[in-house]
C-alpha cells in the first residue's frame, strides 16, 4: 500500500525524467495516463464493493459513473454554478440516482437483480441519449476547466488526492462491522439473514455507497477528458470495472487498483495498434481468471496454497488418531453431564414458557403440510420432534424461523408474538437455527464466523467504521475453544470436516445469544463416530449454557439419549407428546413408524 502511494506521488516527476531521457515520449501524455488509471482504480474499487465484498453483479454501475460526469458538466456549464459545487454534486447525484434505482433493482435477487440493473442501465442511457435539449444527446457535453486546474500536473495531483481520500473512506467501510455484514452476505445470503442481518437493506446501502463513489469517479473523469458522452452509460461500459476488478483480484481491497494499472498499460500498449484484438485479449483474461482463479490475479497465491495442500494431503491423513484419544477423555465428561442432567430433568416442566405454537397451519395448494399444530417448549427443555418422512417437521421449523409464512395460527416466543416476521427479525429475538444442510460462511475463518455473528447480534453491523476483525475477538476465541475447534480457529471454515462444520453452526447459534436453538436433523449424513461426537457437544453445551433445544431427528438413539420431551408428528398433525418413556410405550407411535415400514417394503 505504501509502495502504491509512493508510486502515485512519483508519477509526474518520473514522467518528466522519462521525457528528458527519451524526447519522443510526452510527459503530458504519461501523466494523462496516470490520471486515467487513478480514476479507473476508484471506479473499479467502488464496483468491487459490490462484486467482491457483497457478491452482486451489477450492469448499471457505468450508469452512475456517467451520471456523475453529466451532473458535474450540467451544473457547471448549464447552471453556471462554481466548479467545486458542481464537483461536489457529482457524488450526491450519483448516490441519489443509485438509491432510487437500487430500490427497484433490489426487489429481485442474484440473477434477476443483474437483469434488472441491465434494464435500469439502458433506461438511464436512453434518457441521456434521447433528451437532446438537456444532455446534448449523442453529441455529449463538454466543459472547460477553471484556470487553477487547467495544468495537467495540478490536475493529476488533485485527482490523486480525491482518489486517495475516497479509497481511505472505502477501506474504513470494508474493515468495519458493516463490511463484515457485506462479507457474510457474499458468503451465504440465507445464513446472513439467519444471524440477524437484513440482507436487502445492506445490499441497498452498499449499492448506494458504490454509486456515490462511481459519481466521484465520473466527476474526475470529465475533468481530465473534458467531455461526457452517452456511451459512458451503456451497459457494455461495465466491462471496464469488471475486467479491472478481475485482473487485480476481487478478494483484496487494492486489487482493482493494481488491475487498473495493468489495464491502462495494456490498453496503451495493445489497443492503440490492435483495437479488435484487445477485446479478445480482455475476454481471454476474464475467462482465464473466472475459470482458473476465481478471485483475480492477486488471489493466485491461494491457488498455489490449494495445490500445495493437495500435494501434502497424504501427510495429514494421520491427524485423526490424536483427535480420537482426546475423544475418549471427553466421553467421560459426557457421562458426568448425563448424570447431572437427571437432577435438572425435573426443572424442565416448571421452567418458563419459551416457545408456544397455537393452531399453526401451512397449506401448499391442497396439501396441508402443517395442520393445526399446537406445541409448547419450556426453558431448559430439550424437545425432539419425530415423525416419518413428510410429517411436516421441516415445514414446522421453517414456520418458526420465518422462512415460510403460516397460513393460520400463532407463534409466540419469549412473550412476544413473532408470527410471520422476517427471518432476520426472528433471529434477533433469540431463535438460532442449524440447518438441515450445513450452512456456514465457508471462506471466513472459524473465528470470523462467530465474530460476525456476535457483531450482528450486538447490532454493530450498521457501523461503517471500526475494525470488525478486532471486535469480539476474545469472546469468539473462547467460544471456538468451547466447541473444541480451538486449533482450527484461523482456518477457513469450509475446510473443516462435516461434523466440525456442524459444531460451528451450533457455535454460531450460541454466538447469537440464542435462547432457543433449532436443530434440523443435526446428525444427518454423519458417520456413527461423528454422530456421537456432535451429540455429545450438543448435550454438553446445552447443559453448560442452559440452552433450550428444539430438534428433529431420524436417529432414534440420538432422540432418546438427548430429548427430555418428544412430540410425534404424523401427516402434518401432532399425534402425541410426552416424555421419552411415555413415547416409547405409546402403541400409536409404533403404528406410525410400522406403517411407514410397511409402505417402504411395499414400495421396494
Amino acid at each position, binding site marked *: 500500500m505504501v509502495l502504491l502511494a509512493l508510486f502515485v506521488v512519483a508519477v509526474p516527476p518520473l514522467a518528466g525524467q522519462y521525457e528528458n531521457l527519451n524526447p519522443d515520449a510526452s510527459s503530458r501524455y504519461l501523466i494523462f495516463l496516470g490520471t486515467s488509471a487513478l480514476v479507473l482504480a476508484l471506479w473499479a474499487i467502488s464496483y468491487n464493493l459490490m462484486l467482491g465484498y457483497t457478491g452482486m453483479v451489477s450492469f448499471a454501475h457505468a450508469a452512475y459513473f456517467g451520471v456523475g460526469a453529466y451532473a458535474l458538466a450540467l451544473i457547471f456549464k448549464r447552471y453556471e454554478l462554481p466548479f467545486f459545487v458542481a464537483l461536489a454534486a457529482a457524488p450526491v447525484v450519483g448516490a441519489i440516482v443509485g438509491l432510487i434505482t437500487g430500490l427497484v433493482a433490489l426487489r429481485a435477487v*442474484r*440473477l434477476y437483480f443483474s437483469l434488472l440493473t441491465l434494464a435500469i442501465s439502458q433506461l438511464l442511457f*436512453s434518457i441521456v441519449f434521447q433528451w437532446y435539449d438537456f444532455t446534448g444527446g449523442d453529441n455529449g457535453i463538454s466543459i472547460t476547466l477553471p484556470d487553477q486546474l487547467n495544468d495537467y500536473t495540478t490536475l493529476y495531483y488533485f485527482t490523486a488526492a480525491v482518489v486517495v481520500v475516497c479509497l481511505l473512506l472505502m477501506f474504513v467501510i470494508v474493515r468495519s462491522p458493516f463490511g463484515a455484514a457485506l462479507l457474510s452476505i457474499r458468503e451465504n445470503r440465507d445464513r446472513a439473514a439467519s444471524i440477524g442481518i437484513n440482507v436487502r437493506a445492506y445490499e441497498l446501502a452498499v449499492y448506494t455507497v458504490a454509486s456515490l463513489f462511481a459519481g466521484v469517479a465520473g466527476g474526475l473523469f470529465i475533468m481530465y477528458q473534458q467531455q461526457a458522452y452517452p456511451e459512458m452509460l451503456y451497459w457494455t461500459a461495465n466491462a471496464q470495472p469488471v475486467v479491472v476488478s*478481475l485482473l487485480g483480484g476481487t478478494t483484496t481491497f487494492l486489487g482493482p487498483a493494481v488491475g487498473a494499472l495493468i489495464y491502462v498499460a495494456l490498453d496503451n500498449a495493445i489497443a492503440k495498434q490492435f483495437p479488435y484484438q484487445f*477485446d*479478445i485479449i480482455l475476454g481471454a483474461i*476474464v475467462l482465464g481468471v473466472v475459470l482458473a482463479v476465481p478471485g483475480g490475479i492477486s488471489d493466485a497465491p491461494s491457488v498455489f496454497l490449494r495445490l500445495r495442500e493437495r500435494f501434502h494431503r497424504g501427510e495429514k491423513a494421520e491427524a485423526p488418531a490424536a483427535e480420537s484419544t482426546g475423544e475418549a477423555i471427553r466421553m467421560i465428561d459426557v457421562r458426568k453431564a448425563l448424570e447431572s442432567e437427571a437432577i435438572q430433568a425435573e426443572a424442565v416442566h416448571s421452567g418458563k414458557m419459551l416457545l408456544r405454537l397455537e393452531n399453526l397451519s401451512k397449506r401448499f395448494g391442497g396439501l396441508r403440510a402443517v395442520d393445526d399444530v399446537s406445541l409448547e417448549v419450556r426453558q431448559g427443555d430439550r424437545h425432539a420432534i419425530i415423525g416419518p418422512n413428510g410429517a411436516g417437521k421441516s415445514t414446522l421449523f421453517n414456520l418458526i424461523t420465518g422462512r415460510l409464512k403460516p397460513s393460520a395460527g400463532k407463534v409466540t416466543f419469549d412473550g412476544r408474538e413473532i408470527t410471520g416476521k422476517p427471518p432476520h427479525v426472528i433471529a434477533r429475538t433469540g431463535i438460532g437455527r442449524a440447518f438441515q444442510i450445513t450452512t456456514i460462511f465457508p471462506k471466513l475463518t472459524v473465528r470470523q464466523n462467530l465474530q460476525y455473528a456476535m457483531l450482528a447480534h450486538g447490532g454493530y453491523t450498521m457501523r461503517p467504521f471500526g475494525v470488525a476483525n478486532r471486535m469480539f475477538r476474545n469472546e469468539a476465541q473462547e467460544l471456538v475453544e468451547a466447541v473444541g475447534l480451538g486449533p482450527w480457529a484461523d482456518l477457513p471454515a469450509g475446510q473443516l470436516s462435516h461434523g466440525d462444520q456442524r459444531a460451528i453452526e451450533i457455535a454460531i447459534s450460541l454466538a447469537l445469544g440464542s435462547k432457543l436453538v433449532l436443530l434440523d436433523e443435526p446428525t444427518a449424513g454423519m458417520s456413527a463416530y461423528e454422530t456421537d461426537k456432535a451429540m455429545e457437544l450438543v448435550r454438553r453445551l446445552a447443559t453448560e449454557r442452559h440452552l433450550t433445544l428444539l430438534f428433529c431427528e431420524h436417529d432414534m438413539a440420538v432422540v432418546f439419549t438427548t430429548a427430555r420431551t418428544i412430540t410425534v408428528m404424523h401427516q402434518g398433525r401432532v399425534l402425541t407428546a410426552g416424555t421419552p418413556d411415555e413415547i416409547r410405550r405409546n402403541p400409536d407411535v409404533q403404528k406410525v413408524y410400522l406403517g411407514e415400514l410397511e409402505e417402504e417394503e411395499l414400495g421396494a
Partner: protein
Amino acid sequence: MTPGQVLLFTVGGLSNAAYLFIVAAGLSLVFGALRVINMAHGSLYMVAAFVTVVIANQLGAGLGFWGGLLVAVAVAGAIGGVVEVLVLRRVYGREHLVQLLGTYAVSLVVAGGVRIVFGPNYRTVASPIPGHLDLAGYSYASYSLFMIAGAIVIGAGVWTMLYRTNLGRNIRAAVSDPDLLNATGVNVTRLYTTVFVIGAGLAGLGGSIVAPSQAVGSSIDTDVLVLAFAISVIGGLGSIVGSAVGALIVGMVISFGLVIPQTNPFALAFVFIIMTAVLIVRPHGLFGRPES
C-alpha cells in the same frame, strides 16, 4: 391514427416480434435446461448475420441467401458447441456471478473475432423475397410477412420438439432433476451440449433472418441481447410461450412507441420500464417458474 396506420404498425410490431422471438426462445431454452444465462447469445446472432450477408452477397440474392442462412446456422451451432464444451461445462452449478462473467468473456472474444474477420463497417444484403403487398393505402414488404410466418413455424417447431419428442422429454426432465435423469441412463452431458447447440442455432437463425431487414454491424450483438433479456424476463426465463408473449409485447411497444411523436425518443425506455414493472410484480416473469 387511422385503421390503416394501426395495421401498418401492427405488422411492423409483429415483424420485430418475429426475429426477437427466435433469438429469445434460444436464450430461454438454454436457461431453462442449463440454468445459465448466456451473455454470448447476441454474439452468435451477430456472427450468423455477418456470415449470411457475406455469402448472400457473394452468391447473389435468392439462392445465395438461403445457402447463407444454412451455413450461418451451422456456424452458430458449431461455435455454440465449442463454447459449451470448453467453457459452460466448467460453470454449471456454480454461482451466477461466475456464469455471467464466463459467458460475458466469451462474448468479448467473439465480438473481437467478428470485428477482425468482417471489419467495423455496416453491411446490407438485398431481400431474398422482393416485392411488396399493398393493403389499405400502405405497402408491406413481402419479406416482413415471411419473417412473421417463419417465426410462427419455428415457434411451433420448438414447441413440438419440447413436448412431442424424446429429446424434448429428456430436456424437460433435465430441468427438474438432472441427476435422476442421468441415473436412468441418459447422457446428460451430451444432452446439455445438444440443448446449447440448439439454442446457439436459434440465435443464428434469428441473425440470419433479420439480416435483409436491418443493417448488420459489429454492435448488433449487444443491441439484440438486451432486447432478448427483456423479452425473456417479461415472459419468464425458461418458458417458450413466455418468450412469444414477451416478444409480442416488446415488438409492439417499439413499433407503436416510435410512431407517436411524444414517445418517439423513449420507445426503448418503455421496454425497460415494462421489464422492471413485470419483475417487481411477478419476479419470475409472466410465465416463469421460481427456481427451486
